[in-house]
């Protein structure tokens, strides 16, 4: 299972970075989304995969006796998902605005360093 996840994480990173290097704004955002998901899976993978052992102490005992699934990575992923959700929502609005204001979704066209008298 680990090997499959590792390959998926690698693919997500690679395709995310590839899409970020493209000229299209939409692809840039999709790249960011993929990269964000890749990180979440990486946290999950590195937290250690344990099958079917929730960290719940049985009523008859006072401590966990055997190996259990670490709940911390899941909490981290949950936080990271919420954050990246917010950022992605912002990114989508931003590219829409950019398209309206600049009139193109080509990143190469976005280079105006015009001076603005608005400070």
């Amino acid at each position, binding site marked *: 299972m680990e090997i499959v996840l590792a390959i998926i994480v690698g693919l997500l990173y690679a395709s995310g970075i590839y899409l*970020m290097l493209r000229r299209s*704004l939409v692809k*840039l955002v999709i790249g*960011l989304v993929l*990269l*964000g998901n890749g*990180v979440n899976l*990486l*946290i999950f*993978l*590195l*937290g*250690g995969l344990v099958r079917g052992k929730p960290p719940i102490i049985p009523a008859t005992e006072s401590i966990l006796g055997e190996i259990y699934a*670490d709940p*911390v*990575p899941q909490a*981290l992923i949950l*936080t*990271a998902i919420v*954050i990246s959700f*917010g*950022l992605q929502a*912002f*990114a989508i609005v*931003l*590219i829409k*605005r*950019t398209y309206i*204001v*600049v009139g193109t979704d080509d*990143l190469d066209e*976005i*280079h*105006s*360093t*015009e*001076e*603005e*008298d*608005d*400070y």
Partner: protein
Amino acid sequence: MTINLIILPVLFQFSLAIILLFFWKNILAQKIISIAGSIVAVIIAVGLFSQVYEQRIITMQAGNWIAPFGITFVADTFSTTMVLLASLSSLAVAAFSSVTIKKARMKYGYFPSFHFLIMGLNGAFLTGDIFNLYVWFEVIIISSFVFITLGGKKAQIEGAVKYFTLNFLASTIFLTAIAVLYGLAGSLNMADLSGKIKIIENQGLVQVTAILFLIGFGIKSAIFPLYFWLPDSYHTPQAAISSIFAGLLTKVGIYALLRVFSLIFIPDDFMKSLIVILAGLTLVSGGLGALVQTNMRKMFSYMIVCHIGYMIGGLGMFTAAALAGTIFYLIHDIIVKTNLFLVGGVIFKINGELNMKRMGGIYDQYPTLALLMAVPLFSLIGIPPLSGFWPKINLMQESFATSNYFLLGSIIFGSFITLFVITRFWAEAFWKKIDNPVRKPYIIYYDQMPQSQRLLLILPIVFLSFISLYIGLGAENIFRLSNHIAAELVDTSAYVQAVLEAQKPL
């Protein structure tokens, strides 16, 4: 023992932002609450600072979970100094923005976002948990996205795309580093990690993680070769916003670097020389970038990049004296860079120009004001006895002592470039005469402003200049402080002990 006072700077800014949200349309109330709140924030920060400086490191365990299992907040001298500096510059910027930010922008939540940003900064300075640090970084960048897009002008939106992408990428790399670190050490508490990282067998992977942290924070703090997004985006928002970005946002990256590399990854020789080389190149490339600019704001943006090199250089040498120089420079830089962009805002209000070729005559028109503006400008160069001078001396001595001659050369080069750029700017904007300047009808010029507004424009600069003067003239106090902090960074046992000491739940 858990002391809840630590969380007060964070909670206070948080409640301030929420209160401001209730006054969404009432700009006057927002201004008053924001300035008054920032004054209270300074008092809180001074209280926290004096308590920590005179006594000892205080900690707070969230939810009374014993460290390293819960989220820990730690206030040592370093973090409280940073909180104090952040509150001082945010007070100045709050006052300055109340007259310079356009009404339409204030109506779209300028002040609430401002206090959310300061909350994020305070949180980042005070947390003792690496994942929590990531969360505070996200709070900071989300608020800064609001700032950088507020107004929606073409250049701003274009700057925002670059700013957003690079910051998102930096956060992703930072999070990747945290994931690897957690996989290696199984802990997120920085004090706990500092012990656990040494007993990991696979030190090669530890090095890789350290590099990932260096890249993640390096993008945020704009070190060579990761700085190119900064001059492309920092000049687009309004003066008050740029000044808070310049003063604090890149410095929080430096803070995080200092924390992570003193507490978790103690730099070995390879790491040291890598950081030192990066520092030298940052100084040189930032300086050369500033040299060719004629746009005032772009020039100042490159100055930010250039001066990051001093701080990174001190970290790279990693001796107590060099770290003291870094801390001193950090203290000086936060105040002076905030002030620099505020000065830029006032110059724009006087001249109505951003290109320094078309500026001029400020010394003629406003001699006293010019004298005031000389303080931050010459502090930036480090003309003795102003504040930039002392840390540079310290850093130069240390680069001699550790025979880092490349860094020494870069420090001298960076200082000369700064000297040249600022004196050229001074000659152009202050001394040069301009014949019949063209007045643009859509700008409210400085001499058209009512007296009360002018006062709000100038007082923040006076305030920050006084702090700068104090840093320069009372250098022995600041050196005592920075030596204290550097000693804490070199010997982290007090920090670790304060966090991990047997903390029985009450």
